[in-house]
């Protein structure tokens, strides 16, 4: 059908070309060219190193187990095992590098204050810090408070003083205090 339509088309367009179409165009190919072509192409692919390496044939013939026990496969698996083992050792953490386990507990009040100061107060001067330190020292070395000096009680023993204080009325006690 397609051929007829071309013939019809050519007949109408150019009788000369229509007639020429019936003749041999003189182009030939060497004997057996097409049969040899497939191997030529695959050989070129081999030379270029782009031909696919198929293992399908050997796997189908002998089964996967036979394939696994081939010396090349065993050698490859052994090499892989050694590489994995070496890599594991190489990347394993050394004792020095072990980080202590941090236990997160509720922070104490002091820690919270310190954290607050560190986060919010950053403009302490060295002099200010030194002054604070001096005040603290002064507090530490300040003399202890002297015992209450009550007139007329000198020379009495503690027991006598206690007895005396018990016998005093509230007004008298207030006047002493």
């Amino acid at each position, binding site marked *: 059908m*397609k051929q007829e339509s071309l013939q019809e088309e050519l007949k109408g367009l*150019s009788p000369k070309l229509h007639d020429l179409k019936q003749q*041999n*165009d*003189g*182009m030939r190919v060497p004997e057996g060219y097409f049969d040899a072509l497939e191997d030529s*192409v695959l050989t*070129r*692919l081999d030379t270029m190193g782009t031909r696919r390496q*198929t293992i399908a044939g050997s796997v189908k013939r002998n089964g996967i187990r036979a394939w696994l026990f081939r010396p090349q496969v065993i050698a490859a698996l052994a090499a892989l095992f050694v590489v994995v083992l070496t890599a594991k050792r190489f990347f394993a953490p050394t004792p020095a590098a072990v980080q202590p386990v941090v236990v997160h507990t509720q922070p104490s009040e002091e820690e919270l204050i310190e954290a607050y100061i560190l986060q919010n107060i950053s403009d302490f001067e060295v002099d200010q810090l030194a002054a604070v330190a001096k005040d603290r020292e002064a507090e530490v070395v300040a003399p202890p408070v002297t015992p209450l000096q009550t007139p007329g009680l000198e020379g009495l023993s503690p027991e006598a003083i206690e007895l005396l204080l018990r016998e005093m009325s509230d007004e008298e006690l207030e006047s002493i205090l």
Partner: protein
Amino acid sequence: MLKFDSLQVSATKKPVSDEQILELLRSDNTFERGFRLLMSQYRERLYWHIRRLVLVHEDADDVLQNTFIKIYRGILQFEGKSKLYTWLYRIATNESITYLQGKARHASASLDDETVLQTNRLQADEWFDGDEVQVKLQQSIARLPDKQRLVFNLRYFDEMPYEEMAVLLDTSVGALKASFHHAVKKIEAVFKETDH
């Protein structure tokens, strides 16, 4: 003369569908068998398509092998949006044009000049024994602009339907018909000119 349809009919081996070939190509285990089938299925059609463009057998052989190597490397990228042979023809056409362009560059000539030079080489080709009329036909075809030459070859020698050609060349059927008619008229004019 080998024709587009007669090749399918005259194939000595049982024809295999494109789908069967592609199925074999999808698996590593059967890839090579599929590729061999593809080659045996399309080698003649592609060869003659290439031969009409480059004319000389030795060049056609080079281009055809390059075409199959390209197909081998790229067949897995074939998405099946067009027919397989359309995709194969496209690769063969591109390879032929690239080959001629490379030769033209080497000879510091244009592609059109190179095609004309190829007709001179054709006469010296041991695999060509056409008469004077056939040489004249090839010379007339060689003088056509690239696109027109391609359309003429696909229609006249391969007898490709316009609809398939439209997919291959990404052009409308109307434009292809017009192109073929122009080409035929130009070739006929050359014959008339020399006949007088």
